[in-house]
């Protein structure tokens, strides 16, 4: 996704946060009934990013619920630490200066720099 494409989405009113990925963690989260031992679980991925969404550069957390996956080990997270990604938020919370966002099915999308975007894909002719 290029910067121009993100700007287009923002101009449409989409809630987007862009940040440098610092780490990911897939977990089986949920609740356990202490009395019966029953559990309600779901798989959740936590993305740790560095961004300036609160004005200064700080770390923020974005979460994503994975439906139809029961084992966090099976979650494939092909993201690269240190790269910029765009997160299309469904919502967010700012509590005591802590930003927590959540996304839906649409996962983080890498941001291509102008140079990367200018490189033509294999087999295609270069742009004039």
């Amino acid at each position, binding site marked *: 996704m290029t910067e121009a494409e993100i700007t287009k989405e923002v101009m449409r009113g989409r809630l987007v946060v862009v940040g440098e990925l610092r780490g990911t963690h897939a*977990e089986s989260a949920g609740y356990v009934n202490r009395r019966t031992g029953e559990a309600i679980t779901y798989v959740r991925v936590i993305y740790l990013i560095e961004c300036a969404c609160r004005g200064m550069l700080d770390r923020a957390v974005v979460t994503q619920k994975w439906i139809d996956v029961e084992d966090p080990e099976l979650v494939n997270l092909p993201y690269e630490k240190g790269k910029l990604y765009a997160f299309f938020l469904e919502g967010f919370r700012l509590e005591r200066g802590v930003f927590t966002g959540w996304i839906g099915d649409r996962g983080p999308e890498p941001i291509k720099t102008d140079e990367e975007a200018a490189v033509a894909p294999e087999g295609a002719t270069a742009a004039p």
Partner: protein
Amino acid sequence: MTKSKAAFLFASKTLGQQGLFLWTFTFKDLLAVKETRKRWNYLLTLLLRAWPNLQGLRVFELHQEHGLHVHLLTNQFIDVNRARDLAEQAGWGRVHVTRIPKEHAGYLAKYLSKERPECLKRWRLWAGFGAGWEWTRVKDVIRETLFSRIYRACKEWKQWQGRDRFFERMDLTRQMMLLTIENGWQIGCGPNGLPYSSFEEEDFWFDF
């Protein structure tokens, strides 16, 4: 999902082992929420007097236009006409009931997902009623997340007791969670799998 909603889902599962009935009680006129609650307490007393073995769950829903609605999930067939008479006696208007399959026992949980209105702060949005069954309470539910596991490790490390310095605890736990994700530490441990107590707390406030 909140702890309260999770507790409701557990409770509805317990109740849902038998046939279930979903009830909705509303008013003709718009009433203040406190008045509605008073009338609900009266109606519940009448219902339990008429059917002492009645067991169920009650959920409050603040409707956008029609004030407070009361939804019930019960596990026993009761005479609707008799229930309507009692509802009328307690000052209620419309009563609607439908049979639902036990798989849909958690259906009422959707009302617990709504944002809690200001006027219902400190209210129990749901509650169980009836003798002879134990519904899951919020205190029976443990949240299992990365944060809660790290919180427990921090609690042990810092020997936290009681509820004082809540925000400081949250800040430290959050910092440890961020460091755990960023550095790929084992959950509940610091660098190289060492317990938090092997380090000074100040060390964790700098980047590794």
